[in-house]
Structure formats: structure tokens, C-alpha cells
């Protein structure tokens, strides 16, 4: 009986690892309800992990014959290893990212001046705006961005970044990034991360559009997007702004 449950759990884990994420990534409704889609992604990810570890655990706890065998031991060990690995990947990734963020914070604290609203301004000609997330976030904007955007557009950009900061969106994305890097042979993991990253941008877009206006944000996206040069080393280009602009304007 328990072995049956173990098999079902394993089947569920496989479904949650491949066909289910693939379906969700291809669906069109998420852009209409990003918050719900994000929750669904999180549920898929969490249940997939639980089912994978759970199936090994169940197999380990059910003696297939009259006595417990080496298979049981192996399955239990497998469950323990899988769980530690999943948690370990998350921990290592968190530490690495925090180190990177700390360097960024130190540099920004040293280099930028702070305006009336607590926004950090960097003396750099290329337009950029970003958020250093965490419990004490910093919103950073360059002189280039201030120069190339009108007041309404700039307000929209800052509102977008504030939404990320206040919403602690880095906590949503980070587990996906961590497990994607640990599962490079699983294309759905990459699709999941890309989908969640996009959805998080939509959340921030919606927030900023409510605070200012959808058009102001769309114009800002178009402006800052066109000013960006392709990265010198040809690394993967960031997601296009076009779908986001379309979504705002329609």
C-alpha cells in the first residue's frame, strides 16, 4: 500500500517537474493575474520537491518483503540526501547573493548622494534604475536616467522600483534562481524562473501604473530600454520590454 503511495508520489513529482510547468509557462492568463500565477508557480515548485523527497521516504519506510532490506535503507538515505541537497543549494545561493548585494550596498552608500525621497543618485551617463533589495532596500537611479526621462516617467520608474522593494520580490525569485542553477538539465526549471521573473515585473508595473499612469510607465520603459546598449560580452539579453509595454497600453 505504502509502495503504491510512493509510486504515485514519484509520478506526481515527475508531472510537476515537466509537463505542468511547461503548460503554465505557455498559458496566457498569467499576465492578467500575475499574483495568482506566482502563487501557482510557488505551489508547483514546493509540491514537486515534497513529492520527490516524499516518494523516497515512503519507499524507505515500507518493507517490500517480510523484513527491511538494503533497498529501504537506500531509499531513506536518498530522501535525506535529496532534502539536504535542495536546502543546501538554497542556502549557498542565498549566501552568494547576499555577499554580492553587500558589495553593491557598500559601493552605493559611498558613491551616491541621497535625494529628498531617499533615492540614491549615481553620477553615471547611462540611464538605469534598479533596486538593491532586502530589509533596508536602496533604490538607485543614474543621472542618465533623470536626464532622459520626464518627471512623470521618472516617477513611474521609481514607483516600479519601490514596488519591488516593498513587495520583497527578491524573496519570490530567489528560490527559483537557486534551484534552476542546480538543475541545469531541466528546461522547465529555466522556464519557471523566466516566467516568475516576468510576473514579478508585471506586479511592479501594475503598482507603478496605478500610482502614476500606465502610459507614463510605458513611455519610461520604451525610453530606458532603447538607451541600453547590448552587453559587451554577448551574455543573455535581458527580457524584452515590448510585452510589458503592450500589456500596459492595452
Amino acid at each position, binding site marked *: 500500500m505504502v509502495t503504491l503511495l510512493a509510486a504515485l508520489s514519484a509520478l506526481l513529482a515527475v508531472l510537476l517537474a515537466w509537463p505542468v510547468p511547461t503548460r503554465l509557462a505557455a498559458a496566457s492568463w498569467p499576465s492578467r493575474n500575475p499574483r495568482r500565477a506566482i502563487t501557482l508557480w510557488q505551489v508547483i515548485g514546493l509540491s514537486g520537491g515534497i513529492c520527490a523527497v516524499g516518494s523516497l521516504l515512503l519507499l524507505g519506510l515500507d518493507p517490500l518483503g517480510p523484513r527491511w532490506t538494503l533497498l529501504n535503507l537506500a531509499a531513506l538515505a536518498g530522501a535525506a540526501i535529496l532534502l539536504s541537497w535542495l536546502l543546501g543549494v538554497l542556502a549557498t545561493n542565498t549566501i552568494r*547573493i547576499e555577499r*554580492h*548585494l553587500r*558589495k*553593491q550596498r*557598500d*559601493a*552605493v*552608500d*559611498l*558613491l551616491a548622494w541621497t535625494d529628498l525621497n531617499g533615492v540614491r543618485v*549615481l*553620477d*553615471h551617463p547611462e*540611464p*538605469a*534604475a*534598479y*533596486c*538593491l*533589495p532586502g530589509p533596508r532596500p536602496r533604490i*538607485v537611479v*543614474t543621472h542618465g536616467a533623470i536626464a532622459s526621462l520626464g518627471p512623470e516617467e521618472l516617477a513611474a520608474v521609481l514607483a*516600479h*522600483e519601490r514596488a519591488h522593494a516593498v513587495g520583497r*520580490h*527578491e524573496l519570490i*525569485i*530567489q528560490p*527559483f*534562481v537557486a534551484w*534552476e*542553477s542546480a538543475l541545469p538539465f531541466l528546461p522547465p526549471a529555466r522556464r519557471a*524562473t523566466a516566467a516568475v521573473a516576468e510576473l*514579478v515585473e508585471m506586479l*511592479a508595473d501594475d503598482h507603478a501604473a496605478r500610482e502614476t499612469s500606465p*502610459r507614463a510607465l*510605458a*513611455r*519610461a*520603459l*520604451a525610453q*530606458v*530600454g*532603447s*538607451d*541600453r546598449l*547590448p*552587453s559587451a560580452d554577448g*551574455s*543573455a*539579453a*535581458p*527580457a*524584452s*520590454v*515590448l510585452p510589458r*509595454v*503592450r500589456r500596459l*497600453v492595452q
Partner: protein
Amino acid sequence: MARLGELERAVMDVLWNTPEPVPATHIVDVLPREHAPAVTTILTVLDRLGAKGFVTRVRHGRAYRYSATTSKAELIANTMLEALDTTSDRRSALVHFAGAVSEEEKAVLRELLASG
């Protein structure tokens, strides 16, 4: 804590504006009046900045002389490059505003924003 940050900025400004390595005493002399710190305070600040990688020191006789590791402009440029790096490892660290826009997309964007 805010005062310490101000002091760090002031010390870096001195180092960025001085081409050759200087001793801590020189920094104390050159700092604006409102900071007026003790040499020991400045040494602590220089240590912190050294730990963060912004300052290096060379032995000069029995004392050290300090200098900034990079120019201010270079540091800003490097910081920006790292901040906007979208390789997957760091994607979750920073959420930044813009994506890329290709030439074809520019035309579509213009149309979208012109209507209505």
C-alpha cells in the same frame, strides 16, 4: 551609523582627489572642519574601507600611506556593470528596470505609444 557613512565618504573624497598615497595624518588635516576627527578614528575608517576593497595601503618607513584602489568614475562604472549583470546567478539579487530593445521593436514601440 549615518555619521560613519559620512566620514567614509569624506575620507574617500580626499583619497580620490589626491594622486599619490597619503598618511592618515594628512587626511585628518585636509578633512573639512565639521568632521574634525581623531587620527585613531580615521585609521578605523581606513581599515573598514580597506576591508571593503576601496582603499589600499603601502608601508612608508614606520607608517602606512593610503590610496583609493580605483578612481571614483571607474568605481561607479564597475558598480553599474555588476548591478545590471543579468547572468542567472545574480538575477535575483537585483531587479532592474529596463530590458533591451531591438531596432524592429523600437518601431513597434513608437506605434504602440502613439495610438490613443
